[in-house]
């Protein structure tokens, strides 16, 4: 269970303080798929970041699988993210100097998964994303869709409990985007992973188990 309780998050910008999240509360059941939608600047990314522990709220708390993220030390939070969280970013954000194989291996190595188990897992994921022969390719040699598929494979490689995806289809055409989402959902369901993602695409939203609408930092509906 992911519990977000009265979370408020402010940013300081050139226009003064901006309230990105205002007293947001929600519960997400384990193993479900949740879509967050809203206009640009509504607070989707901030909410995802707070759930993943990338940002700490000024007020309120986020509890993921029994761990209150605000109460964790810096190191404990890093270890929590390393073990239980997978992130997919808008533009993939693969590590540019690592090959596809090494990018997927990165979270596995961080979690101490080495040797045959690691190689087997990467081979399986590469096969799954249709890039079995592209393991040695560097990110700049891949198309946008391929980058996002590798990004999902990397985020799911270490069997995380939670996958957070920030507009993963934003840089893709609609067909490629939908295919990526289907792949992400399949992987999530197979691994029993809780998926929370943000998107503007109404068709994709319909595919999720739960939908959250956010406007000016507050939940709607």
């Amino acid at each position, binding site marked *: 269970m992911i519990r977000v309780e009265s979370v408020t998050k402010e940013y300081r910008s050139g226009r003064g303080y901006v309230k990105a999240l205002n007293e947001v509360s929600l519960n997400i059941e384990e193993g479900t798929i949740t879509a967050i939608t809203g206009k640009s600047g509504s607070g989707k990314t901030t909410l995802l970041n707070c759930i993943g522990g990338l940002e700490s709220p000024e007020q309120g708390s986020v509890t993921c699988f029994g761990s209150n993220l605000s109460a964790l030390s*810096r190191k404990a939070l890093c270890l929590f993210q390393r073990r239980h969280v997978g992130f997919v970013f808008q533009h993939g954000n693969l590590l540019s100097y*690592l090959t596809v194989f090494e990018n997927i291996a*990165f979270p596995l190595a961080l979690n101490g998964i080495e040797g045959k188990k690691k190689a087997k897992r990467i081979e399986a994921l590469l096969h799954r994303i249709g890039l079995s022969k592209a393991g040695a390719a560097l990110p700049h040699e891949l198309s946008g869709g391929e980058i996002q598929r590798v990004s999902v494979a990397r985020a799911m490689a270490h069997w995380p409990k939670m996958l957070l995806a920030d507009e993963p289809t934003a840089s893709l055409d609609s067909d490629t985007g939908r295919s990526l989402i289907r792949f992400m959902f399949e992987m999530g369901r197979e691994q029993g992973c809780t998926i929370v993602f943000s998107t503007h695409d109404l068709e994709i939203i319909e595919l999720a188990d739960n939908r959250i609408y956010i406007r000016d930092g507050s939940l709607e509906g």
Partner: protein
Amino acid sequence: MRFWIKTASLFLFRSGRSTAVLSFMILTAVASLIFLSSLSVGVNDAMIRNSVSLYSGHISGFALPASLGRESLIREGVANVLKRNSIPGILSYQDRLETVMMIGVQPSEEKKSTAIPEKTIRGRYLQNGEREIFLSKLMAENLNISVGDTLRFNPRTGAVPVRLTVSGVYRTGIDQLDRGIAFYPISVIPVKVDTWSAAVFLKEGAEAESVINNYRHELPESYQFKSWREMMPDLRQLIDLENISMGIVMILVFGVVSLGIACAFVIFILKNLREYGVMKAMGVTPWELTLLIVTEVILMNLVASFIGSIIGILAVFIVDRVGGIDLTTFTSHNPYFVVSGVIIPRLNVYSLCTPPVVAFLCGLVSSIWPAVLVARKKAAEVLRIV
């Protein structure tokens, strides 16, 4: 740790051009400083070689009894021992007189080790067993005497005067040798001399102090030995000054290079900041990120220093093979380069190890700034702003 070393290596290897540019700075600095340090050692060597080989040797022995043979002073590391004695007296030619310290030498041995014979400007050097005198240009002018003329030497001891023919005239440019002394073959003046002095010349790499310690250990305490360091404090200070100057140059060069590396690395890291943000989002701790960046800098430093060292050593080797750098034009009036102005760079532990060690330490320090910069940034902040 292996994982971070591998990741850092991949980062450096696949960021080829940036790595090459950064490495080039370190490599150039290490190579130049190895060469410069070796040149500095070579300058010191040349000054010592010039100063000791002209006359005095690396070690001077005084008040040695006539019963002690020169062979007794030959030890490991000793190339030659020259036996000399001194007789004070007066030289006279026609109506002119000059007080003099006559130095009795073994001409054939002197020719092997000293450079005085090379300083002959007229005539020739002495020959064993000939009743000859070899005097300075100044003394020849004062006596108004030329090569081939015969003068008279009156020992102060009251012994019988001796007639000597001028074999040659020399000029060293060093006051102590150009004024008040003259040389003759040791056997030709029948004056009983109780003591003799020794000029000990050492082989390359032998230390004067250790040979003196050996003498002191094995010979009676009354025998006096002094190294060139004690005999020529001005030269010793000059060498110390040279070493200090070299140290300062090294620190300055690497200070500038380190700052350059740190700045270049900060730009390099800012360019890749998003990737470090992604790593943080994946659960990489600030400590691990610092370790990664420091490892990147260390690896780059090690490789660049290794290549720089090889280039530096090669440069020293090549200059050595071509016979050194001839700076006679700039040293001809310098008393520390009276014999030769050729500088041969020489590698020693100091010149070989200091530049890469300093490069490594400076690189390590220069990596702290970018490492702290990245470690302190929050992942969300990085991902939002980049």
